[in-house]
């Protein structure tokens, strides 16, 4: 059992670290497919990457219900760290979660089980934060959509392999849909619901 005494610390400089992390995630959202860096300034619990921890400390609070994949949910380290530093309630029901933390792509549930927002409030959807292996090498993808001049190329090795095919379900739902943030260590790529992705092979 973990006691508070063993918890990794939060941001050393709360304001500046949260601002810089927010900026990275915002830039990633504004430029889908571009790789943004997060300056890590916090301790990280087991099973959580540095980028994920920084995003958690920046975006989560007691108003954002959180869903964790089975691997994270079974770790008392992760649960206690999140509770102590963010206060975000962990929920079992994917459809009411503001954020979903996925440490292992194999544990990603069917995407339509997450909150998709409503036509009046499309922002009330789940943002899925998915930890992936690499965002600088691997299969090649081409992204198009708002925020992209022509087409953007992304090389990533991610699980599940068919993530982008699955994300095509966003298309007919618009303006509803889910946004995905991919994290590999300190690199972040956002795939907002407006991005259209074509696999280009490796």
């Amino acid at each position, binding site marked *: 059992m973990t006691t*508070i*005494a*063993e*918890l990794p*610390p*939060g*941001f*050393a*400089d*709360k304001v500046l670290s949260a601002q810089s992390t927010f900026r990275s995630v915002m830039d990633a959202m504004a430029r889908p497919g571009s790789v943004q860096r997060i300056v890590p300034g916090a301790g990280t619990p087991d099973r959580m990457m540095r980028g994920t921890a920084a995003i958690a400390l920046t975006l989560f609070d007691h108003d954002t219900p959180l869903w964790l994949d089975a691997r994270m949910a079974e770790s008392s380290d992760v649960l206690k760290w999140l509770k*102590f*530093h963010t206060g975000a309630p962990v929920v079992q029901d994917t459809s009411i979660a503001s954020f979903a933390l996925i440490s292992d792509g194999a544990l990603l549930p069917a995407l339509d089980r997450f909150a998709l927002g409503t036509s009046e409030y499309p922002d009330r959807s789940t943002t899925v934060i998915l930890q992936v292996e690499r965002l600088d090498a691997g299969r090649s993808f081409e992204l198009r959509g708002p925020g992209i001049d022509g087409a953007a190329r992304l090389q990533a090795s991610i699980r599940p392999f068919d993530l982008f095919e699955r994300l095509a379900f966003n298309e007919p739902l618009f303006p509803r849909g889910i946004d995905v943030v991919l994290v590999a260590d300190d690199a972040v790529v956002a795939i907002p619901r407006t991005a259209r992705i074509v696999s280009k092979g490796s």
Partner: protein
Amino acid sequence: MRQVLSKGSVNPVTQHNTQHNTQQAQRKAAMAVLAHAEAGEIAARLRDLALDVALPPHQDLRAPENGLVMLRGRAGGDGAPFNLGEATVSRAAVRLASGEVGFGYTLGRDGEKARLIALCDALVQSRDFGGAVERDVIAPLREQLMVRRKQAAAETAATKVDFYTMVRGEG
């Protein structure tokens, strides 16, 4: 009914609980003093203490932050509770290298004071530093606090007006 334990067979659970309670009471008492002390005073006492014994390395588990708490009151002291208003508080958590975690909460926006209180709270729990902190930091601050309170009470008492009715009649 509570069982009376015979001498020599102290229940380890009870003993542990008693220790725990004593420490909680000690931390509570320390917090009551520290929350009313000035940040500068606490810092100065800690600095003096650090000259005698090297303070253990420590880190901010939770960097100082400001927030609001809702203050609740009761009409007439024992009536229905109502929300009186919000007050600014600062809090921090500090962890010593040896593992003790201290928490600091204080009214106002002085984050550094919250951090100092958290550090003192952690030190109070420490086996090696608890005595020294109690003796060199908390006891003198408590004394100051008492003096200030007594002085304020005396000043208030000087303005006290006693109303009494003179007995009429009877010459």
